[in-house]
Each structure stands twice: as C-alpha cells, then as structure tokens.
C-alpha cells in the first residue's frame, strides 16, 4: 500500500519587520515543512518550519528577501543518477512575503 497524501496543504504567512509568523497548515501532509529564504532571487536558506509558528532569518546581508513556506510533495521515490528526486519535490503552501535590508 503506497502512502496516500490527501488534500492540498495551505497556510498563510505574515511579516512584521523581519519576523515571520505562519498559520497552522490545513490539509497538512505531515512531511518536511520549511521556510525557503531567497535573497535577490537566489535560495540562501531552507529552514525547518515545524518547530514553531514564528521565525526570523538571522542573515542581515543587504538585499531583497523573499520568503515562502514549502512542504515536501511525495509522488514516488524515483531519483536520477545524481540521487535527486525526479517527480517528488517541494511545493509552495503559502503566500510569499518580501522585505529589504
């Protein structure tokens, strides 16, 4: 019996200064949940978001930051020769917020 994942996870995130606050995830698949942090369009960090509803990214390097909440979407465990998943991937489950330093 292959594991089944029902529904589509959704959450909202808010920004207060650099402090991020997320809602609980509805239709939570229970897989890895992470804050994806981009600076000037490049991913600079992915941080486990399970440990709390708030997070403040410590990076203070100047730039335009964009943050979104992501969850692992398991389709199957197929991987390419480099060991990367070919069908399963992280998907965005929240709105995006931005701030500038």
């Amino acid at each position, binding site marked *: *019996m*292959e*594991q*089944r*994942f*029902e*529904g589509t*996870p959704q959450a909202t995130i808010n920004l207060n200064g650099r402090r991020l606050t997320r809602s*609980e*995830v*509805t*239709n*939570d*698949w*229970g*897989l*890895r*949940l992470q804050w994806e942090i981009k600076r000037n369009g490049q991913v600079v960090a992915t941080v*486990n978001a*399970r*440990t709390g509803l708030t997070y403040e990214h410590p990076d203070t390097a100047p730039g335009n930051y964009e943050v979104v909440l992501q969850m*692992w979407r*398991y389709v*199957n*465990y197929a*991987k390419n*020769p480099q*060991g*990367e*998943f070919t069908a*399963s991937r*992280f998907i965005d489950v929240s709105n995006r917020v931005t701030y500038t330093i």
Partner: protein
Amino acid sequence: MLNIGNEKIPLCHGLSRRSFLSIGATALAGMSLPNLMALEAQGAVDGERARIKNCITIFLVGSPGHVDTWDMKPQAPSEVRGKFNPIQTNVNGIQICEHFPLMARKMDKISLIRSLHHRTGATHENGQRWMMTGHDFNADSVKPHTGSVISRVFGQKSELPANVILPGPIGNTGAGNLHGQTAGHVGSAHEPFFLNADPAAANFRVADLEVPAGMSAARLDARRELLGQLDQLQRRTESNSTQMHDSSYNRAFRLLTSQRAKEAFDLNLETARTRDRYGRNTFGQSCLMARRLIEGGVRYVTVNHFDTVFGQSCWDMHADGGGLNNTYLDYERHLCPQFDWAFPALIDDLEQKGLLQETVVAVLSEFGRTPRLNGRGGRDHYPDAWTNFLCGGNIRGGQVVGSTDRIGARPHDNPILPPQILASIYHGMGINLDTTTMPGPGERPVRLVEAEPIRQLFA
C-alpha cells in the same frame, strides 16, 4: 472479504484457511465477519496489577539506521556518523537526530533502548518475527503475534476486536511470508483484525463493518435468527468448539451492528485540526485511528509504517540505485518528518484523553543499519545493534537503556534481546510470565516468551 491473518495455514481437511473463509463467507451470503472471532478468550491474569491496559506498537518496516536517528555518533569518522547532526532533547544528555525536533521535546516521556540486537538472520522477516512475537520460527512452528497473545489472555473489552493491525499486513519484504502477524497456535479467534483500507483516503470505509449492499437491517436480523436456530441445532449435537464458534457469530453480529464500533473507525468524527495534527497521510491517519481504537476498547493496535520495502520511500536505506533506493533525502524530507509529526501528536493526544497513563506506545523495527555507509551512501541490514523505544503507562521516560560502542557496532552495556521488549510489555500489562502459559502446538502449554522484562524501563 474480511482478512484475518495474511498467511495460508492448511487445515486438517486440506483446505487453506483462505479457502475456508471464502466458503464461509459465501455460505453466509456475504457475512464474513463471523470468521473474525472463532473462540472465546481466556483470562489468566490479575488485571488489577496491570498498570498498562493497552498497547500501540508502531512498526517501522525497513528499519531506520540507528546511527542516523536515535543513537548518533557525532565523534565518529564521517563514513560512520553520516550526514545528519544531533540535537539536544528536553532531557539533559540525551541527543537524537536533528530531523526529530518535535520528538526531542517529548524525550522526558520516552525510554530509548540503544542496545537491542539479535543473533539470527539479517532479513527483514527475522526481525519482524522477533519483534512481533518474541521468537524466531519457521513455517512448522508459527508463533503468535503479541496482540494475539494479549487477546487470548485478556479477551475483548468491547464489541471491537482485541487486536487490530493498521492499515494492513506486512507484505513482501524479501524473504518469505512469515512476518509474525498471525495468531499462530493461540487460535483463529485471536487473529489480528486487519483494516485493509487506507484511512487517509477521502472515501475511506471499513468494508467489514458495512452491511452488504442490498441487505436491510430486517434481513440482517432474519439471518441472525436463522443462524441462531442452526447454532442451537449444532449445539445439541456437536462439540464445545462449535459452541465457541456460535458465540463468535454473535460477537461478529454485534460488531457489524454496533454503532460504537463504527464510530471507533470513523475518522470523520475528528476535527480537521486533529486530523492535520497527525498528518494527512496513511501513517498519520493510522496513528489517529489507533488512538480512537484504544479509546473504543481495543487492547492492542499495531501500525505498520509501510507494508513493503520495495519501490517506495521507506526506512530501508540501501541507496542501491534500483528497487531499494531510499537515501538520506528520503529520511530528511519524508520519513523522519512524517514520523516526527505523527508520533508526538499521538503522545499528546493520548495524554489529553487520559489514556497515556494506561497505554504503552512501543516504536519497534527489525534491526539497525550498518554503522559504516556502503559505497553508495546507504546503510544495509544490521541486527547486531539498534535502537527502539517505549513510552506511556508506567514506562519511565527520559532515560536511555543500554548503549553501543563508539561506532554503534555492538552493544556496549546492558545488551537487550527482542523478547525482553515483549516480556516487558507483557509484564507491564500484569502478566506473570512465570505462571501464564498458553496452548502451544498439540495443546501443550508453553510460556509466552522466554525472557525477563527489562526492569529498568519501569518507574
């Protein structure tokens, strides 16, 4: 079709049990439930002594690498310590893998056993037999699942079966079909009730609790009456075992018609938030159902985290590039987070319902994984050392029982064998292992398990 047990066991007249069930079901015009409980349970224990009344076993099919999860070796060479880092738990001095941050907050309730090992083969099935039954065995001497023993000793608390396995039986794990999830010689009345459905599915239903389509309640009652008349006739002419069969029919009817039983299996009675707390996946919803079943009167629930090790994400991290290609990425993104979401939710939920103090939760697996990474960055089977854990009931949390050497290759102190885990569960449930026996092959009385409980586990 109701499934009670997942292995073909020849009957004396040459039919397989599966065939027998099919014939029985046909004869009863679709009523397969009477096959669930064929014999009356027998009490043999002072229930007043039992601090633990129920057990939930979470079985991690495939087996996590102990060095990657609950027995980390951060000072070991890189080919041993692997890719993950340890984090501090809420118990000073106990560290576990960084991908279990929520479990780390529950460590004060958990007793880790880091010196498990066994000395038989390194197949999944060897480990399953050990951890499900407390014995290794072959097809000629099938030993009963722990839940079946509990069913035999204590009987049912309610209309619900005493022993339930979710979501279904262990299937192909590579080396035969002796997984230790049958009642063996304690009798078909104590076979596990397999859900055989996915509780995470939007259209989830327990087929065995549904009155067959087209059959009204009145027709069901009529069938019960007819069956009762037949049973009266049989009772006058046949053996005690037939009378026990009659009783099981009555129980099966009660299960089929019981609103309480239906509700125990109905996850739609939970709030969306509660369902989210466990994870909207097969494993998480099985853990939630386990809590509901314990609440409803089931004594022993086993949740199989996966039913095979082939072709899907599971704990069997060989990283072989083929059909056994689980890697660190599966652990990091899928397996550890899925467990770390559902397991603490189960503990919290049991505690909030007042059930944790009488329910032991045992997280078990078949073996450990090789201390040194293989050439592809995976780890292979390793029965010489591994970690499992228990919590709930009068298990003393916040402790580590036993340890392994500096690379996790061997028990360093207090080596523990699988039967000791099950002996501890039996002991915690109030069973005197010196005096309690059950019928073995040929009705010869046999001890439940040849091991002593781990006294250190208990508060």
